[in-house]
């Protein structure tokens, strides 16, 4: 049933015309970035034992530090830490919507990743980024090149990871 403008209830179904729907766009275009800009990223992600086991198993990373809790305790941890590369991917993942999500935003490189402190199951990751560099692309006039430094935090306090990465980002004038 549908309410008409005059308030009457009818049994007509609304007509579906794709042109009536405004696209909720994701990901900024190149022109929106400027050096020094600070970006606070969405959602946060609490890491679980399930994440740790899935990630370690699917990447065949069986280092006992990450797969053997008894061994981790012998190395001085209270419980086994989350694989550092899952922390890296999740901090990067949290930043994507505000940085490199636009289609055509080719990955150019990760300059550095620094693991600053171990992360344990139950910890909640959040991330923020700073724009370090913005420049034109000689080979692709429809895009530019942006470098960000992204920092990951656990429970909104302790920085646990810092990464610097560079991507192509399409220009608004080209999309």
């Amino acid at each position, binding site marked *: 049933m549908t309410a008409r403008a005059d308030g009457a209830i009818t049994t007509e179904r609304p007509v579906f015309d794709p042109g009536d729907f405004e696209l909720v766009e*994701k*990901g900024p275009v190149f022109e929106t970035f400027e050096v020094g800009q600070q970006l606070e990223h969405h*959602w946060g*992600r609490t890491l679980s034992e399930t*994440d740790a086991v*899935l*990630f*370690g198993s*699917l*990447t*065949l*990373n*069986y*280092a*006992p*530090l*990450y797969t*053997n809790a008894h*061994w981790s305790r*012998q*190395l001085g941890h209270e419980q086994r830490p989350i694989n*550092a*590369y*899952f922390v*890296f*991917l*999740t901090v*990067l*993942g*949290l930043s*994507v*919507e505000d940085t*490199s*999500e636009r*289609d*055509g*935003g080719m*990955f150019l*490189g*990760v*300059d*550095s*990743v*620094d*693991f600053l402190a*171990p992360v344990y199951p139950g910890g909640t990751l959040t991330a923020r980024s700073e724009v370090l560099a913005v420049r034109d692309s000689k080979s692709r006039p429809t895009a530019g090149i942006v470098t960000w430094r992204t920092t990951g935090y656990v429970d909104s306090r302790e920085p646990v990871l810092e990464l610097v990465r560079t991507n192509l980002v399409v220009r608004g004038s080209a999309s």
Partner: protein
Amino acid sequence: MNAPSPDAVTGPATFFEDYPVGRRMRHKRGKTIDELEGVLLTNLCVNTAQAHFNEDSQKHQPVGTRIVFGGVTASVVIGLASQDASENLVRDIGLRTMKLARPVVHGDTVYAFTEVVSATPIDDGLGEIVFHHWGRNQDDQTVFEADRIVHVRRRPAAVTAEES
């Protein structure tokens, strides 16, 4: 029967002393990267770039199919290399100059290669190693390269070659 000795947790030749500078390792096991790795891990780590998980959206893009998230490729190569290079990992320190030379798509197989770039003792129990890792695909093309920094255990004094 008793449980295995703690000495069995790691192999006998994966301590700091086993990685002289310049040593090159070709790791035996490869892994075919399917949707299981590509899509599941991309979605688990909240990477919202749909080039990694929306096949329809990629039909008219240059590669024409979903591209595996480079972080997944990197993690699989590092996982494969870890079996020989960092069983005795005490701490992951970082990664430098990671490049993805060409796209990986679902169904591609990656193999890992490693060179020891530097090896610096920290104390009696620990050393820092920089590995250069390459990921190569089934067609012998490089798909991933990076330097990885780790802290690994030194061989316990009781079993050093000098003392035995």
